[in-house]
């Protein structure tokens, strides 16, 4: 009797997958072969490099440093981010410049970063933010993944 039940359930399972197969295949065909755009696409994935998902406004992406109007970094080297960072990946050095404490070295090893955003939360000067919208940083060496946030060029 139990075997009988199993048998029907397996048939049901086959019907479920079969339905997916047929329905999705239909939409794939009309979307990608006949190029007819329908609302339903038959897949839930995005084709990454060509189509990108929209990044929600509070999504945590690559870090960036904020600068004052004079062009000096806002970071005063309080090291709170260094303290709070769970992956130990921030290196800050500050020096006295014209009587003010200003960061002279600010390196984040993105390779180790967990993107927890604690550093952003903790910063008392709002110096570091994670809203650059850059998600795809790829490199063939560890070195290039140590971001120097004080470097103001492109990158």
């Amino acid at each position: 009797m139990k075997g009988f039940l199993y048998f029907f359930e397996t048939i049901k399972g086959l019907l479920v997958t079969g339905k997916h197969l047929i329905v999705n295949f239909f939409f794939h065909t009309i979307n990608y072969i006949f190029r007819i755009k329908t609302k339903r696409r038959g897949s839930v994935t995005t084709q990454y490099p060509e189509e990108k998902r929209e990044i929600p406004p509070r999504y945590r992406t690559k870090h960036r440093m904020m600068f004052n109007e004079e062009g000096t970094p806002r970071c005063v080297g309080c090291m709170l981010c260094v303290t709070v960072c769970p992956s130990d990946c921030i290196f800050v050095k500050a020096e006295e410049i014209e009587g003010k404490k200003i960061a002279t070295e600010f390196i984040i090893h993105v390779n180790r970063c967990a993107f927890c955003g604690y550093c952003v939360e903790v910063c008392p000067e709002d110096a570091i933010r994670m809203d650059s919208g850059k998600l795809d940083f790829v490199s063939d060496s560890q070195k290039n993944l140590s971001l120097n946030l004080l470097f103001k060029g492109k990158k």
Partner: protein
Amino acid sequence: MIKIKINDKEYSVKEGLTVLQAAEEVGIEIPHFCAHEYLKPAGLCRMCLVEIKGARKLQTSCTTPVKEGLEVWTESEAVVKAREEVLKLHFANHPIDCPECDQAGECSLQEYYDKYGFYDNPYIIKKEKREKDMELSDNLILDRERCILCLRCVRFTEEILGDKQLFVYERGNKSYISTYKGEKIISDYSGNIAEICPVGAITDKSFRFKIRSWFLEKRETICPLCSRGCNIYIETPKDKPYLDNYERLIRVKSGDNGEINKSFICDTGRYKLAEIEKRRNYKAIYEMQNVNWVRIKKILLEHIVTLDTIILSSWLSNEEIDLALSVFRDYLNIKNIFYWGRKDGEEDNILIRKDKNPNTTYLIEKKVKNIDSIDSRISNLLVFGDFFEDNPSVKEMIGENSFIMMISPYLPRDIGKINLLLPVTNFLEKGGNWTNYEGRGQTTKPVFNPKEEIKTEFEILQIIDSLLRKE
């Protein structure tokens, strides 16, 4: 002993204490800024207000002496409310730039705000703008905005130094701390002012913006730079990967020992130790070449038996002196055993002693002669430490073709004369007992781990001992 009641609980405390001290003794914390263990009570900051039975108003606990049957409440509603109000006033002009303040992490204001504060700033008026980085002396920087006018600094110069170099100028909201006409403070103890300031108003230049205080670890030891034997803390970065590029000795703070140095130390101890640290040598050198320990043992064996003079250093610990004497005086029967050390300097009646070495007293106790009494010429010499410059007469006594062995943690200034140089741990890497000028023994533990291959003087003496006995 008298009986008092704090927070409805009975305690028996010593006579002559203030309520604040009594509470501290039994483990009840009363927040305070201006009260300091070794300064007279002033009752300025009003932070230590407590409720006392019979008194109409709240009383400052730092100025109220304990008496039999006193009843105190430190956490009652009125006290908590008052504390909050006092804190509000303290913050009225405070800039709150903790992110760039060197005191952050060890600041009383921060701590109490965290514990008793958490209010929104009630004042609409703008905070006073004042000078933020005024040089108070060669090693101190004053930030007048952060000052909460507890006057610890003023009282320190007045009571401990006795020369009253700091004053309060103006009144009320405008009052500020300054020296007379803005001159620089000149004192051998100025470093203490930065240390006793409960907030970041007076900070140390050598520590300015260097590292955050919560990355540091305190390790207790004794200052070896004079025979007072002041207790000090060495602060070193905690084991964290991002602190790799710092030196191991970040700063020296005074330890607390009421019988020796209260909680103050002199500037020499505070700033010179780091300098001494830098001249380390880790290589054994024989005739200007590196040698390993197998070779060294052979050399030692060859020359130890022909030794005629031993010069001990007054930086050796009691144990090392004992062992050295038992080996050289009792076993080898060497007559010419002397001690030497840094040459004498100035002294005052606060802390600084004339004798600039930590352990001379013990050597004298053991009847070791001072190097000045040397009269015969030296041909084979074993010497601890490098103090040739402080004792120029020794050089003249060294004959031609002499063999000199030196055991020193630092590179000697005149290496050419030394035939065998053995590196050892320095005073921060070894423990031991030290006897200060008044005969008080103090024990220390090693502050830092030595490099692996470096031995202590004690171990080297043990090696010599075993070499001799094997023969």
